[in-house]
């Protein structure tokens, strides 16, 4: 698995992400600066990490979404390449038009930084094959703007096409109001695009991949990606 991690000014989770990718694949990810106009040849997956690109100025992810490297990411995605965006990365992918909808201010207006439970909605995708459908995983979140919103038509399509891959839930796997930490529509924590090759999610699976982190529930996502790409190769 040859991965490329995008680096924008103000991003701060790129090293956590690189570590998780290295752990899962055994390969050193390429760190790609935002001003680049192409991706390293042979890239299997592009990862847009979390942080606060451009200080969240204008709207979260808005300026990063228009960086030169994003044109290369757009054509990579159009060709079926896998793209993963986490936290600010999810916001950037929405702003770039690679995913529908928008991440609004958390309904409670507070920055939320703690572990949450996610229900994995299906296991037959490159982004979830390391898990079982219905499995509950525990991963951290750290965001002020993670409240996913889209118009009714878009939400209906996302649900109808099974494109919600991760949903906030209780420890028992119940999707309810108290577990919907930021007020997201349909408790959405992560969605894929129509073609199923671009995932955006607010929680940080890369921060739960080693025992020293207290939990390894995030490993499945990266292990699943590595397995998917090995099989494809």
């Amino acid at each position, binding site marked *: 698995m040859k991965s490329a991690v995008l680096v924008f000014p103000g991003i701060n989770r790129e090293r956590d992400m690189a570590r998780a990718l290295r752990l899962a694949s055994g390969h050193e990810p390429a760190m790609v600066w935002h001003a680049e106009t192409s991706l390293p040849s042979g890239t299997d997956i592009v990862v847009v990490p979390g942080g606060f690109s451009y200080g969240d100025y*204008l709207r979260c992810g*808005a*300026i990063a979404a*228009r960086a030169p490297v994003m044109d290369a990411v757009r054509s990579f995605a159009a060709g079926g390449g896998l793209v993963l965006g986490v936290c600010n990365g999810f916001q950037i992918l929405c*702003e770039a038009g690679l995913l529908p*909808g928008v991440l*609004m*201010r958390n309904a409670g*207006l507070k920055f939320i930084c703690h572990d949450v439970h996610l229900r994995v909605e299906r296991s037959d995708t490159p982004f979830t094959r390391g898990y079982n459908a219905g499995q509950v995983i525990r991963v951290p979140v750290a965001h002020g703007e993670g409240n996913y919103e889209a118009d009714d038509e878009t939400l209906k399509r996302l649900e109808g096409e099974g494109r919600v891959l991760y949903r906030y839930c209780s420890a028992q796997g119940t999707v309810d109001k108290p577990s919907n930490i930021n*007020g997201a529509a349909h408790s959405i924590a992560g969605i894929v695009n129509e073609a199923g090759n671009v995932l955006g999610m607010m929680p940080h699976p890369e921060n739960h991949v080693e025992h020293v982190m207290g939990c390894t529930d995030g490993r499945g996502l990266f292990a699943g990606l590595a397995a998917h790409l090995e099989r494809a190769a």
Partner: protein
Amino acid sequence: MKARVTVTLKSGILDPQGKAIEGALKSLGVDGVASVRQGKVFDIELSGSDQAKAEATLKAAADKLLANTVIENYRVEVLS
């Protein structure tokens, strides 16, 4: 030329910041506030003096960057 782009949330989009401001105004005793929606104002200095061209430039700026048209509306004005 001086110009202004005003970006506002579309109606029906939940605005938690506006709601918080509305609550704060009420607790300050500012009477008669029914609701508050928060938006953004961009004051832009344009080179050139062609009104139609200026409006096209502002529209392009709003569409490409200043507004997220999924959730926001915008209005462009050439002020002078």
